[in-house]
Structure formats: C-alpha cells, structure tokens
C-alpha cells in the first residue's frame, strides 16, 4: 500500500507516538463522558439489578432471555471481524490490512470483554459464575460438559486468550519503537511491555513465525466461537431456534457486524486521531466490498430460514416464522431487513464505498440491524413456543435499555484507554509499505523469507 502523501519512516514514528503522548482536552472530555455514561448507565442499574434480582429487567415467563443475551451475542459478533479479519488478511497477504488491523483486533478484545460482562449481567446469580468453570474443588463438583453453555465458557475463554496474545505479540516491535521515543513513566511502561525487544533478525524471525502460526490457529477458533454461541440456541428444541443453519448464520452475522464495526472505528480513528494518511479510501472501498458480500450471504440465510419454516409445515415452525414476520415484533424485523439486507446494496456503487460519511452511517445502521437480529432471535422464538396457552410478550425494561447504552460506553472507554497505550496503527508494518529511507544491505544471514512478503 502506498500512503497518499509521501511519508517517511520518521513521519510514521512521529504520528503514532504523538497519538500516544499528546493528549488534548478533547480526549479527556470524551473519556470523562464515556466513563460517566458507563458508570451511570451500566454499573448503577446493574448494581440495582444485583440488589433486586433479574426482575429489574423485563424478562418473564416464557421469555426468560432478553436483551442481555442479545447484547452478549452482539458483542461476541462484533468481536469477530477484528482478529478474524486480521488473520485472514495476514495469511492472504493483503497489504491494506496493515493500517487498520491493530484497532480491529482491539475491537475484538474489547467486545469480548463487554460480552463477558453481559453474561454476568444476564445471570441470576453472577456471584456464582465461577461454578461454570471447571476447577478442582473439595466437593468434587464439576460443570456439566454436555451443556452448550459450558462449550461457550471454553470457547470464549480460548478466543479471548488467543486474541489477547495475538494483538499483544503483534505490538511488541511497536512497543519497542515507542519505548525508544518516550521518557518518564511511559518509558518504563513500554520497557515492560516490549519485553526487551531489540529488533534482531532472530526476534523478527520468531515473531513472524509465531504470528503466522497464531493467525492460522485463530481463524477456526473464531469460527468455532460463534458456532458455539449459536448452539446455545440451536441445540434447544425451540421452534425457529433448533436449526442446523444457525452456526453458519451466526458466523456470517458475526463477521458482518464485525466488519461494519471496523468501518465505524476506522472512521473515528481517521477523523479524531488524525490518521487520514494511513486510513484511506482504499480501506473503505475494500471493506465495503467485503460488507456487500457478507450482506448478500446474510440475506440468503434469512431467506432460507423463512423458506424452511414455511416448508416444514409444522404448526410450531410455521407459527414462529409467521410471528417473526408479522407478529408483535414485526416492525423490528422489517427494520432489520431494511438496514441489513436492503441498504447495504448501496455499496454496489464504488462512489458510495469511497464516501466516508455515508459509509459511517451505513455501518452504524448495519450494526443496529444486527443488534435487532439478535434481539428477535431471542424474543420472537421464546415468546411463541410449543404450548400456545403459555405464550407471552416481552418488552425490555428501562434498566435493560440503560445497560445496553452503558455497555457501549464501556466499549468506548476501553477503546479510549487502548489508543493511549497501544499504537493504534502498526508502526512497523506501515513502514514496510513505505519506500525505504536509504538503501540497506541485507544482513548476512539473508532476509528471512517471510519478511519481505509481509
């Protein structure tokens, strides 16, 4: 990739380091706002809910799951594109990845963290959440390994661990670069973070090998995580949830909303971190193409879902689909179709894909639609199961809506902290795309084969 204007290695160093050390009042104000929103909208109502019980939310019999679980899937979904996309692009040598992958991976990390807190919020007795973790104990009580929720615990823990290592490992050379350009406490922090990176060939070699290895490992992991999340639903026998297509449906949905999330984050970084030169139209164009493909696959699966429901001819499946399309929650369904299936068709046009603001709006719309999708999966299916006399309706409570908003603030807060600690675009990989400042002789051992291809 070629940056839009001629930039030198020094420019990159300067720009990135500046984004870490020069903190304007705007940043602090934003941080203050997001922290307060997080406290007021997430922690305060959650505290109330812990005192009162899950009854603070709107869930009921038969809709015992609600927005908390929808948010959980949403955040897990959002987490998908980051690391997954980064890995895919890494092993397919897509150079345009380099400017954006770090923040995309951060997105993964933070969405996963928010997702885990959503599980806490969802539980009736979160103070006993450790019981879902297999640890040796005096009572010899183990979790139930047959439970898809148990699979979830495993999968998410693994994915979180993998993603954390992946992003951290990829940042080590940059930590070192920043370490060498900072002073004071920052310097000490980066000394620790860079793990004594010196930039030797052996180090580069090992890093490259490990990085590629992890990238290959994480792809199936990411696919499996969302498949497993889908099994929370699909392994039940609830009409409209008990579907084989759910795993691919969830994976595609996850990548779809994740990619849209990346577009949003790219926009913000570009605009507010002054990365105009690194994040360019090219990125939006490529992401737009990807989004378009994903939206088509997603739409296809939705159509399949309706078709199989209709074709099944059983009262339960048919009713579940009918209710989704025309029942109480129908306006939400059609909103979702508009945002996730119809509006993305605009991206057929290159002009649209390369316009920043329209792409921002669309990416936000897609994620609103995708949130709606998760909500509908829970709400429409649970409220219409096998016994019609037990049907009911569920409306989220204020506490739930507030927590939903608060969780977004939590994500933003985490991200704001991240951008001040992690170089949010990869210094060394950007440099690889620039013309080298002066001809440089190759080291004796010869350039590691993998490196020039990066």
């Amino acid at each position: 990739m070629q940056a839009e204007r001629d930039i030198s290695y020094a420019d990159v160093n300067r720009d990135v380091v500046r984004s870490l050390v020069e903190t304007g009042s705007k940043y602090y104000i934003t941080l203050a706002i997001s922290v307060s929103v997080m406290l007021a909208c997430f922690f305060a109502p959650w505290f109330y809910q812990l005192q009162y019980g899950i009854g603070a939310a709107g869930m009921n019999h038969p809709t015992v799951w609600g927005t908390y679980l929808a948010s959980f899937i949403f955040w897990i979904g959002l987490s998908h594109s980051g690391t997954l996309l980064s890995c895919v692009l890494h092993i397919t040598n897509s150079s345009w990845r380099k400017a954006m992958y770090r923040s995309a991976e951060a997105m993964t990390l933070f969405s996963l963290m928010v997702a885990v807190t959503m599980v806490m919020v969802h539980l009736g007795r979160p103070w006993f959440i450790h019981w879902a973790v297999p640890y040796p104990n005096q009572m010899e009580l183990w979790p139930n390994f047959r439970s898809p929720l148990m699979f979830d615990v495993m999968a998410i823990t693994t994915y979180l661990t993998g993603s954390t290592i992946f992003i951290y490992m990829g940042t080590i050379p940059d930590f070192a670069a920043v370490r060498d350009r900072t002073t004071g406490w920052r310097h000490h922090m980066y000394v620790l973070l860079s793990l004594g990176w010196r930039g030797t060939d052996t180090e580069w070699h090992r890093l490259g090998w490990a990085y590629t290895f992890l990238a290959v490992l994480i792809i199936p992991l990411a696919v499996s995580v969302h498949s497993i999340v889908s099994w929370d639903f699909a392994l039940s026998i609830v009409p409209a949830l008990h579907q084989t297509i759910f795993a691919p449906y969830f994976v595609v949905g996850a990548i779809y909303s994740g990619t849209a999330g990346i577009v949003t984050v790219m926009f913000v970084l570009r605009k507010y971190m002054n990365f105009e030169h690194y994040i360019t139209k090219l990125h939006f164009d490529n992401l737009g193409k990807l989004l378009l493909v994903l939206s088509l696959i997603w739409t296809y699966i939705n159509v399949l879902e309706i078709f199989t429901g209709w074709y099944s001819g059983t009262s339960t499946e048919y009713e579940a689909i009918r209710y989704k399309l025309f029942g109480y929650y129908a306006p939400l369904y059609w909103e979702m179709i508009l945002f996730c299936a119809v509006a993305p068709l605009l991206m057929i046009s290159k002009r649209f894909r390369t316009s920043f603001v329209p792409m921002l709006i669309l990416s936000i719309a897609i994620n609103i639609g995708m949130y709606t999708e998760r909500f509908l999966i829970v709400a429409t299916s649970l409220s219409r199961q096998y016994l019609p006399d037990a049907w009911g309706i569920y409306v989220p409570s204020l506490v739930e809506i507030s927590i939903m908003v608060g969780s977004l603030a939590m994500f933003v807060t985490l991200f704001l902290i991240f951008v001040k600690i992690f170089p949010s675009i990869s210094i060394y990989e950007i440099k690889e795309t620039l013309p080298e400042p002066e001809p440089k002789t190759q080291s004796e051992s010869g350039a590691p084969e993998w490196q020039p291809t990066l």
Partner: protein
Amino acid sequence: MSFINDFLASWREYRRPGYYEKFDYAWTMSIDLDRCTGCEACVTACQAENNLPIVGEDEFAKGREMQWIRIERYWEGEYPNVKLGFIPMLCQHCDAAPCETVCPVSATYHNQDGLNAQIYNRCIGTRSCAVYCPYEVRYFNYNNHHWDAPLDEQLNPDVSVREKGVMEKCTFCIQRIRQAKDQAKDDGRRRVRDGEVQPACVQTCPAEALVFGDRNDAESQVSQSMNHPRAYHVLEELNTDPSVVYLKKVGSNAG
C-alpha cells in the same frame, strides 16, 4: 487408548434406552383429561405445599407468576358449538430432559428415582433450562419474595424457600417421596407401597384426575394408566420421554 474406550463405553451405557429403568423407582404421574374439571385446586395445593410465593399483581401482569402446576385451556369451535378443554401442565420429569443437558452447572439433573431434580443452591440463573424445556414449566425467581407476616407461619419446613436468581419447578413433591421412603425403611420394607406417596396436587384433586406412583411396579395404578388405550404424551414428537402420562379426553358425539 483405554480411557477413551472407557469413556465411550460409559457414554453408550448412558445413552442406552431404559437407562433409568434400572433404578428402584420410576415415579410417574397420570392425568386423566376426561376427569379433570379445571378446578385449579391442584394449583393452590402445590403453592401451599411447596412454599410458592405470592408474586403480586404487578409481577403477575409481567408474566412472572409462580405456579409449578398450571391449568392450560384450549377452546375448540365457535359459539354455539364450542368446547373448552383443560390440561394440567407441570414438569413432565422427562427421561430425556432437554433442560438437564443445557444446565452448565448441573443444577438440574436426573436423580436415581427418575425425577428431574433441581438443586436450588447450585443454580446460577442462566435460565437456559427454561428455554430448553418445551413444556414451559420452569419458573424463575425474578426477585426475592416476601411473605407478609404471619403468612410465613404457613411455610412448609420440609421445603426450602428460594432466593432471587434461582430456577425452580415441580419436584413431584420430593419431600413426600423421601418421607414415604423413610417410612418404608422404618417399617422394614424395601419398597414404598403404591398410593403411599401422594404429591399435594394429586392428593387434593376432587375429580381424582391425577394418579401418582411407580411405573417400575407393574401392579401400580400408574402402570395401568401407562398401558391404557387412552394414554399419550404431550408433545410426544419431541422425544423427551416424559414421566407424566395423559389420558385422552373422551369426545363424545352430541347427545
């Protein structure tokens, strides 16, 4: 690798049909829909026996009633040729219970008497079991319930009071089963006699629509019900293998 073989062997054993039948008892309830009048006596009897809370009008309106057995009603036809059927719905104590597989902490499990048991203390409140249960008979404690004094004096000391965040449901009045077993043991008997255990709902039913007993005992009244030509399972197609058997209503021609 021998441990894998061991694992597979026990897995197969576990999935073998009739797995539960090797246990001493297989508690079963039969519900004769031709007798049930929908009077709701069973509902209140269960509430009294099992310390079910009064949730209050507001919570009830939100759909958070606590009634381990409920009467569902289904209308057929239009006025004047209209019929109303009642069906008591309670935990079916499925032998292939979907609720049991999903619980991450094994708070709900199958006990050796074939009951779908619920350990309140172990439950972390994921509510997944309620989603997985096709009969919608699992009730969640959305908050801590409270009994206006002295209504609390009525609480049954043999049954615990559940706290917020915990799932609960019909236990087949396990405290009464225990008591009957203890009694049998004290009397030097190996087995509980048919009719000796009567859950609260069965006990009160004025029309004697409910019968409870052990289907491993071929002579028991429920065994007869199981073999009755009118016997069926609700949502049989789901293969949950319930321990509650319904006897079909007899729909006679007019006149």
